[in-house]
């Protein structure tokens, strides 16, 4: 069973993502901030990390950098309310798997996670 991590400072987002992704058979853990998420990452690897971009303290970009350092094979999907072009470019440069402006259509997120997970098998 693949593990997915969700990071968003609004609980409703984590709850909804957890509910829908669990339905697909994934083992999902959600976090309200970057720090606790990074702490968990030191204990366990995840197939996919879905993270909000703009958060207080450790933001999405820092999460991305840390994940890529620890687990280069882990796919990072960015979701954000701020569809900022400059940030997008910077993120693409750092190898974000996918990028969704909020509100995110859950169907699309599921498809992206599926692609990310299947990509790993290769």
């Amino acid at each position, binding site marked *: 069973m693949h593990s997915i991590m969700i990071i968003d400072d*609004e609980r409703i987002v984590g709850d909804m993502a957890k*509910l829908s992704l669990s339905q697909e058979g994934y083992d999902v853990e959600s976090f309200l901030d970057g720090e606790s998420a990074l702490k968990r990452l030191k204990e366990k690897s995840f197939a996919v990390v879905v993270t909000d971009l703009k958060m207080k303290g450790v933001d999405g970009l820092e999460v991305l950098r840390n994940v890529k350092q620890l687990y280069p094979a882990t796919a990072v999907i960015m979701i954000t*309310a701020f569809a900022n072009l400059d940030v997008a470019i910077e993120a693409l440069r750092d190898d974000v798997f996918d990028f969704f402006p909020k509100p995110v259509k859950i169907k699309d997120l599921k498809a992206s996670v599926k692609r990310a997970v299947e990509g790993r098998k290769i």
Partner: protein
Amino acid sequence: MVSKHIMIIPELSQIWSRLLKLLPGRSAPPVSPRVVFERFQKVLASNNQALEIIADLGEKLGGDYLFDMRYVESSVEELIAAVHGSVLAVNELCGDRHARLHQVHERLSEDLRLTLAGREDREGPLIFTLDEIRPRNWALVGGKAAHLAVMRHDPQLRVPDGFVITARAYNDLIDHNGLRQQLTAFEELMSATEPEADLLEQQRSLIEQAVLAAAPPPGLLDALAQAAGRLPQTGKPLFLAVRSSAQEEDMDFSFAGQFTSVLNVPAQPDALFAAAREVMASLFCAGAVAYRRRVFPDEGKMAIAVVCQRMVDSRSSGIVFSVDTMQLAHDTMVVVAAWGQGEAVVEGGTATDTFQLHKGPPLRIAARQVADKEQGLFAGAESGLTSRAIAKELRAASCLSDDELLQLGSAALHLETLFKRPQDIEWAFDSSGQLYILQARPLVLNTPAREKALPVRVEQHEVICAGQGKVAQQGIAAGPVHIVNFAEETGEFPEGSVLVTHHDSSRLVTYIQRAAGVITETGTPVSHMATICREFQVPCLVNVGSILGKVREGELITVDAEDRRIYRGLVDELLVYRATSCINLMSSREFRLLRRILKKVSELHLVDPMMQDFSIDGCRTCHDILRFSHESAVQEMVNLGRDERRLIKGNIVRPMKLPIPTGILVIDIGGGLASDAPERDVPFQAIASVPFRAVLQGMLFPEIWHNNPMPVGIRDLMNSMFSPIREEAAEQYSGHNIAIIGGNYVNLCFRLGYHYNIIDAHCGEAEQNNHLYYRFLGGVTDMTKRSRRAAMIAQILKEFEFNVQTKGDLVTARLSRLPQREAERALDILGRLVGYTRQLDVRMESDNDPGKYAEAFLNGEYRV
């Protein structure tokens, strides 16, 4: 391109306009149709932008999107701006005639922002009378009071008068007594996913005690004195029923029996405050907190209001479920009644009469079960309720006469229609036989367990009990028995046990949420406890009779709360479903907030432009404002073609050449004509305007336009010459037929001899922008004949689903928001109608004629 048909010199026109402005009382010079049309397009554009945002917000409620509060907040701000744009645009179009829309919009926007900030219940009056409450006050007065207020306005229902101590007063009490920090900490703990049980209980108890000891906030006692003083006096001392009205109560969740009610309270400020304080404190009682954690798992915040109503001296009272929840039969309703006050029914424990009514129509009594009623609750002389023994001759007598039952049934049906859902109703008949409705809320209905392998026989299991009792909530439950005896309350309920007890008390809520199933020896399916079982979807059988002696503490049993069988042991065949304990997101704070926002934004009250409440004052939501704005804009466009002299003087006017003996002058405001259209003798083929083409097509339909005018008798002609024709009509009767056209627009004023048609239409690909407006007035003969022709036109147009209004010889018809194809078809019909009715009124000799000629038209028989 300057044409020799322009009949005015630009510079002179400017000088003239300036001169006009200097003259007192003169309005600004008229604006060209093209500019008017552009302003109209601006209204459409803002409206569409706003409607898209509303649709976008609504889409998120479906659960298919990850959204956060930031999205909701930014969308609401965008919406406020878009609606503001619409209000500006419609006022620019209509010469600021609707300036008052700005105030309405500002008020609504403020309310939306307060809602988003969770502060709707901090501002407003301390007390509302029931009659003052409006739907937008919901957050301040709570669900129960909001429903009572709606019922108060209904002349068919009798609801005791009273007032509400608002959530603002509750918040003031919290602040005045320095409890805000403590409350916030408790609310946060409530929202935690897995709070420490002991800590939660400790904090809960502390805040409950604190509220019970709280001092009244400034102004409240005076306000109470005033409110009680204003209630009409009857000569007898005034007593009030003081009950809860929490924000979410009686909306999607009943909170049945969880909050305190204090009945028969003397109408003095101190007594009322003490009672209200008890009610407010019950927001933090163990049962209510357990209930809240179950249905709102991550929402700690909830405020409470208190309803105070005149006590009804109940002779009999009880409950009506407008749908029989036991059989899930929508054609039957259930009435449960007791002597005295209704608490006896909802708190279980006493014998009650049960009746079934068949809704029909006609409404009729289908079954009666009269019980032996030993006790009843009645209002005490000083305050509160007392339990009294029922007189011997009344014990076995029915609490309700047949007439009263039917009266109650009618009221229940009426309430179902009023609130558009099945209802759970509390009622009372007083000593003089008057029926009062005390409460009405949505009835909690659950569909039966979907999957169930129904075994034909389950032989290897002993049946403890079969066919006894009533189903309060369907389903299968299995687990170890845990007997609850309130006399020896232990407080610990083993999770997953089957709760077995004597009384069906609402105090069981803390246990119910941990129970696999519930069995009670007494009780009714309409009690508070039963309602909670349904809401929590815990299978429940009530009134099974003696069972406590038949089961042992801890032994495993299986309850089939569908076929009403209780088995010893676990019956695997029956255990086909597992209770899911997933997060119920639809009741999360964000979803509930979104639903509340959408209610204030998208509920449409201004439905029919022909109705009187279609006014600025009738606008309650953003959608209402948009609708009003759109209709006003359309009205303005309709009047565009009025002043034909001005139109002809100020614009390039091109005469058409048509194969029918009628002249039409065309004014193109952009895209209405083909680029190579000639200056005069414009043929049908040169018309690019979609709606105008459709109308012309109708007018040119074979047989529509005869070459011979109808025979007009001398009498008819004399009639028209000597009857006073309305002035407004008179100036339009003479003159030209003018069509103002754009690519997707037409405003056609058709003056055919003695009558007058206006067709105004916007018709293109954007369905939401399409509208058709038709007005017909006049005729050459007497009023009776002219009215008959109007009736004929109305009949025809109704067949094509127009919204039609007639008044004498005036017909107005509208259609809006339809696809382009259908709009073109409807315009074609209008074109045919214009030709067909040309002089038909002289034929309208008898009252049968409208129908006759309408039929002929609808059958395509255009030759009269």
